[in-house]
């Protein structure tokens, strides 16, 4: 099962796959101009983690990390730390 399906199957509102962000977090999927966050985790102590899934030779670039963090910052007024992490599924 794909990683995103596994995450959805957990039914945890604080740990979610395919979260779109534009003016707010949680726009409808694929909303025009939105940025898609692969996996979002609200740690609930004012820390939010964004996991950017990469495979092969692709890497998380600084500009992309900044874009993801900026979108999340707009939509998460209680978050004090937003951590963007490159993630590589091991299998």
């Amino acid at each position, binding site marked *: 099962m794909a990683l995103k399906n596994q995450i959805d199957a957990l039914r945890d509102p604080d740990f979610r796959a395919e979260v779109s962000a534009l003016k707010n977090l949680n726009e409808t999927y694929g909303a025009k101009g939105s940025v898609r966050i692969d996996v979002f985790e609200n740690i609930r102590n004012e820390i939010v983690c964004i996991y950017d899934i990469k495979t092969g030779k692709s890497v998380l670039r600084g500009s992309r990390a900044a874009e993801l963090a900026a979108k999340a910052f707009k939509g998460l*007024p209680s978050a004090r730390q937003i951590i963007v992490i490159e993630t590589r599924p091991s299998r």
Partner: protein
Amino acid sequence: MTTVRQVKKLLKPLVERHDDLALVGFTVYLKPVRHLLRGVTIDRTGEAARFRVRWPVLNLCEPRERLPLTWSGFVYPSEGLWLWSNPSLQDDLFQAIEEQALPALRAIETLDDFFTFASDRERFGAWPFDLFTLLRVGVDCARGDLEAARTGCAELLSGLSRWSMPSMREDFERVTGTLCPLIAADDRAGMARLLHEWEAYTVEKLKIGHIYQPTPFPLEVMSASDGLSR
């Protein structure tokens, strides 16, 4: 990805058995729409084989071009995921919507109800509505809580909040440049006129004019000395 045609075919029978529902695009709305949008949305995923189901609530106190899912709950299947290949998808989905979403949505009737729902820390820990100063000024104003609206405007106009950062400039200038001066002048007629304009804009953009019922905001039906209505 899931298409509007698929959603229409899937949800049409649900709309036919509830006289307070209307289907527009990917969303079944509760009608009539006054100052709140309440609905059940089929949210697409990156895969054509499945979708997610959310029940968002939104106030109409700012101009919007889409329905965000920011303040929403999830509708879950009894097991697994919502898959188009499920032979009993329609029955399972209707039961889940009728049990998980519609009772909760029908209970949210007023702007005060929306404020309470969307500001729930347990449900929306990282994005409770009351912390979105830029968004809540309009709601506070519409609810008639002008003291809170003034406090919000003062925070915005201090320039020290996150809401004045460049990427939010358009929304920031709209609120601080149009609504906040009316609040400062205690111009209730002006505030109401502006809020109705914003409401009408969203109604048009979301193509829900046929289920929209224009009504006065609480701001308009209370006297200046009433303060916040409950």
